């Protein structure tokens, strides 16, 4: 079980889906969901000074309406500006290869495609989680 997860997604209904799916699958003990890349950046800026409360794993939506930058840019900032100390990847309904390549280039460790039935992808991700944490797992797209 992942001790703490941060979900960054502008769709509040997906927060509920993700929370329930993680709870049913015993994926996460503590899950925080926010709707903006800017809020996430502020949190990481704070955690770079004081790591208390910092999540172990971060799921970022690709298109974050209402934010001043997208999910790939958030992954880049988290990895390059605030220290590469978390398991981080993209969760999006898009499976555009160009975007996937960009995410991989900025240090995303996984790409999970959102759909109505997301549970099997989350289970597959959880199975590999220890490898992601150890940074030994290759980048993977969960479709």
């Amino acid at each position, binding site marked *: *079980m992942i*001790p703490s997860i941060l979900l960054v997604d502008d*769709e509040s*209904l*997906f927060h*509920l*889906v993700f929370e*329930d*799916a993680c*709870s*049913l699958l*015993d994926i996460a*003990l*503590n899950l925080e969901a926010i709707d903006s890349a800017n809020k996430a950046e502020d949190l990481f800026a704070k955690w770079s000074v004081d790591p208390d409360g910092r999540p172990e794993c971060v799921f970022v939506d690709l298109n974050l309406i209402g934010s001043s930058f997208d999910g790939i840019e958030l992954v880049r900032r988290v990895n390059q500006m605030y220290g590469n100390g978390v398991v981080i990847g993209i969760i999006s309904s898009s499976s555009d290869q160009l975007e996937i390549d960009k995410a991989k280039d900025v240090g995303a460790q996984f790409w999970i495609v959102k759909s*109505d039935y997301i549970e099997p992808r989350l289970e597959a991700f959880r199975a590999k989680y220890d490898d992601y944490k150890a940074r030994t797992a290759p980048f993977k797209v969960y479709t």
Partner: protein
Amino acid sequence: MPQKVSLPDGAWAALIVAAQRDRVFIEGNILKVLDPEGSPSYQGYLDAATAADKDKREKRLQVTKQVQEQNKELLEAQRIIGLKTEKAERALNEMREAKQQTEAALAEAQQAREDAEAARKGAEGAWKEAKNDLDYMQKRTQFELMGRIVRVSLFVIVAVGTVTTSMYAMALFGPKTNAEDVNLLANTWSNMFGILLTNSFSIIGTIMGVKYATESRDRPNE
């Protein structure tokens, strides 16, 4: 693995009583960290609470997914309505522009019609003026012709009268007078004078007739 949380026996007993009496369980992630400490009854409570929690979460997850799907459809419908509204607004604007252009073209056509009307009136005026000028010229020419005829006729009458009268006077009062010649000249003078007077009045009558006829012909055109 997360660190386990222990509860005092009293708390466990209260939880179990609430579950048996009211079917009320604690729920959420706290269930994952509670330690039953090997007690079958505590473990039973945790299993029942976890099953109830899972059941609720599954139901909520399905409902949330349905709502999410409906929300997607609504958002898509909203997007389509937005596009259609935008298209309708664009069409409305184009229609407004077309109407303005039609109105401008109509105003131009009206102006052109007024200009054409003014030009027609101007042409009509010019035509009337030209016609009046022509009439004036024709009348002037007629009057000049008539004057000339009258002058020539008077000249001829006066000249013939003078010559005949002179000859008659010479025959009457000349040195060599012959009664037969005088008589002949008297008759001739008398006849000639009668003819001249008749012709004079005939000419005057003809002129007056021509003038009257010309005026009668012109009148209906005015």
